[in-house]
């Protein structure tokens, strides 16, 4: 039981401008369910991509069953017995379960033996309680059943170590419970399960041991039986860094409300309710931070306020003026600027030039177009001025933005949004993926905007960022705001727990 199935030592993985893994150690024993816990951006995905052969580490070693291995593709990893169950399923919707299971298997004969495959699939599904009909077609299955097919695929290829990336994100509570039983059954047979999650409750109930990652490093590995939700939360959020709160030249004036969100509800892309009666206000010059683990409705909230997504009920107003639901044009006209999470494909038109992108929101105004004709010269002059003022590093203003570095992409976006002199700014993960210098520049711009009286709604998973910039912190969980506290002297641990879904009363005890 205590023999290690996988041992990763000193893993370092750098991407341009980011160190995703900075010396991570992870040891997985045979026959255990091992949870990998951490906020988004802590390095969980990078680590699992290294283990499954998708990335190669820059430093560090991977051992499987005591033998050092270098994987150059997922197939290599699979041959070594490591299989991944992805969060986004990779199934062919019109194929049957059995066909999907054998799809991509190497060395098979040209024709598959349907009966034989079906028998093996049935055998595996009986053994682990993965009820699914091998002859059913994928599109007929529920999301939970599709996940079982993903697991069967990996088992069919003889994986001894299974990595599940946030498997419960798509499941109902009942489906989740049956998944946990399956994981337990697999562990009891001597397989190892790596369970990636940021939900504390689940980790506590399903895992044998937990490794916590934070900022690309291993915080530690603990036995689940010897820790508590509270203990894990403080490991996850950390408290070592003593950061300084930004001192504002021009403090917020909360007597004037610039943005008012009144009982807004909205659906996500798949039509499920993802915001439930959200109400919030942002004062003049106030920075309101929205903390929360990704996928708890933050993206939908930003999109609803900026008019990209229609609300199902409730109202949004800037000053005294209502913003029409689902009309980005109305939001722009009311003075709402939006720095979206996906900068290059939502905030910008990637193949368009820097100058076109700088005109993306004001091309309808009289400075840029007259009689519906574009004034090319005005577009170029505007771009030249903004590139200079916001220090965008680009060969020239006709360069497509997709060729710029991440930091400069963000500068183009900020230049456009700030130069429109907004009343409200919605910034979603504005520093994610940037290098240190660019992060600093972006934060300075946000504070400068607030000093000028812009109400800023800062949506971020980086709690440090929120705690150092924001005046007030809201905590979002499953489409609701669970907590609303002043940032000055806020209790990190309490915020961390609330982010994980433990409710406030429980924390107070």
């Amino acid at each position, binding site marked *: 039981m205590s023999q290690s199935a996988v041992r990763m030592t000193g893993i370092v993985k750098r991407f341009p401008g980011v160190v995703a893994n900075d010396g991570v150690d992870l040891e997985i024993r045979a026959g255990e369910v091992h949870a990998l816990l951490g906020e988004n951006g802590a390095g969980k995905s990078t680590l699992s991509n290294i283990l499954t052969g998708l990335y190669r580490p820059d430093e560090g070693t991977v051992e499987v069953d005591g033998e050092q291995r270098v994987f150059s593709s997922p197939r290599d990893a699979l041959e070594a017995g490591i299989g991944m169950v992805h969060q986004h399923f990779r199934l062919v919707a019109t194929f049957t379960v059995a066909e999907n299971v054998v799809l991509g298997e190497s060395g098979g004969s040209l024709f598959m033996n349907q009966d034989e495959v079906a028998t093996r699939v049935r055998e595996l599904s009986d053994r682990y309680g993965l009820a699914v009909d091998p002859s059913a077609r994928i599109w007929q299955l529920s999301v939970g059943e599709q996940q079982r097919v993903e697991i069967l695929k990996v088992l069919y290829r003889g994986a001894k170590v299974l990595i599940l990336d946030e498997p419960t994100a798509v499941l109902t509570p009942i489906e989740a419970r049956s998944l946990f039983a399956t994981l337990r059954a697999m562990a009891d047979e001597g397989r190892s399960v790596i369970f990636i999650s940021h939900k504390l409750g689940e980790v506590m109930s399903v895992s044998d041991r937990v490794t916590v990652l934070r900022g690309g490093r291993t915080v530690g590995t603990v036995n689940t039986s010897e820790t508590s939700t509270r203990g894990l939360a403080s490991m996850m959020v950390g408290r070592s860094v003593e950061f300084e709160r930004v001192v504002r030249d021009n403090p917020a004036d909360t007597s004037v409300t610039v943005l008012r969100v009144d009982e807004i509800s909205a659906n996500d892309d798949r039509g499920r309710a993802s915001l439930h009666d959200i109400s919030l206000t942002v004062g003049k010059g106030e920075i309101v931070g929205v903390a929360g683990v990704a996928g708890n409705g933050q993206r939908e909230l930003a999109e609803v306020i*900026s*008019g*990209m997504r229609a609300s199902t009920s409730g109202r949004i107003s800037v000053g005294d003026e209502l913003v029409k639901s689902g*009309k*980005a*044009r*109305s*939001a*722009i006209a009311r003075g709402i600027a*939006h720095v*979206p999470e*996906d900068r290059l*494909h*939502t*905030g*910008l*038109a*990637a*193949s*368009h030039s820097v100058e*076109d992108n700088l005109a*993306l*929101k004001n*091309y*309808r105004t009289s400075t840029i*177009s007259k009689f*519906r*004709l*574009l004034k*090319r010269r005005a577009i170029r002059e505007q771009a030249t001025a903004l590139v200079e003022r916001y220090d965008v590093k680009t060969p020239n203003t006709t360069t497509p933005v997709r*060729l710029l570095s991440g930091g400069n992409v963000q500068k183009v976006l900020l230049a456009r949004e700030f130069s429109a002199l907004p009343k409200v700014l919605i910034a979603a993960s504005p520093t994610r993926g940037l290098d240190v210098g660019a992060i600093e520049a972006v934060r300075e711009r946000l504070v400068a905007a607030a000093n000028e009286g812009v109400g800023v709604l800062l949506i971020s998973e980086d709690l440090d960022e929120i705690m150092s910039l924001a005046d007030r912190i809201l905590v979002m969980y499953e489409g609701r705001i669970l907590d609303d506290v002043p940032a000055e002297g806020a209790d990190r641990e309490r915020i961390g727990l609330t982010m994980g879904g433990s409710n406030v009363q429980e924390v107070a005890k």
Partner: protein
Amino acid sequence: MRSPIRLERRLEQPKWLNWAVPLISLVVALVLGAIVLWLTGKNPIDVYQRIFERGFAGKKAFSGALEMATPLAFTGLCAAVAFRMGLINIGGEGQFYVGAIGAAWVGIAIGSAPTGITIALMCLAGMVFGSIYAAIVGLLRAKFNTNEIITSLMMNYLAGILLNYLIFNSTSYWRNPDSPQFPKSKDIAARADWNTYKIFGVEMPIAFLISMLAGVALWFLYKRTRFGFEVSVIADSPKAARYAGIRTSSTIVIVLALSGALAGLGGAADVGNFRGLLDAKGLQMAGYGYTGIVVAALARRNPITTIFVAIFIGGLTKAGYSLQGPDFPSGLVGTLQGLILFTAVAGEILIKYRLRTNVSRAAAVAA
């Protein structure tokens, strides 16, 4: 097993590729065609020379090329306009028929109006009919996100059935009652006959002039107007368009309506400038709408280039018709056109991607 050659996306697309690649594609197509000709026991140079003489050289040949080019210019523009927004309108064929039906109606009905007004009204009718027909596809796409390729294609068959019904299976307004044995449409009024100009001895149909004007106007629309800007942003990233407050749904409908109007205009030209009646069978045999897709693809969606490509394909087709005979099989020109399309599409990939050998990559990794 790794293949020795890989495609790698180009970060930057050098400007010279935009004309060099199509030209090289054309040369490659001609070389492939030459091999086919040589295999069938013909002298490729001799054949190409005859095609060039009959299709392009001389006033008479070039006049023929322009005549063939006119419908293709309109259907080419129809496809190019939609391609620019990433919409694939296969329905140029049906929109062409419907435009012809509308224009023939006006042409038959018109009595003694002056020629200029008649031409204008026929054009208008063709455009309105074609644009409404295409707007249906646009509405379905905008409201229900139906695939415009499928709906526009199906509507081609509907339009064909409508044509047959009007001329062969009913006593409609269009059908000529004096010819019960050989069903055909009424001739359009004499005044509805469109002009053809002689320029340096080359016969230039007025419809071809209109198509050139349309090409330039579309170029301007896409390059210089707010609408063109919106279309290009939607084509680049629909999400960014939504984010910037661009009305994507209505733009889809407008672009398809515009696309259909161009095909409908071609249909009007077919009735007014060339056939002088609504030729149900001839229209369906010609397949201008489908060839227009090829034209737009070769022209890389550029409306001005579309006109030139239409002349090129028009000349080829003309040569194919006039050379047809025992020593010149009718499939030859079609084969050549197919080869050109094939190499042009392959060339398109080379504009976006570059070829890399895995050997050089391995060396780069080692370095």
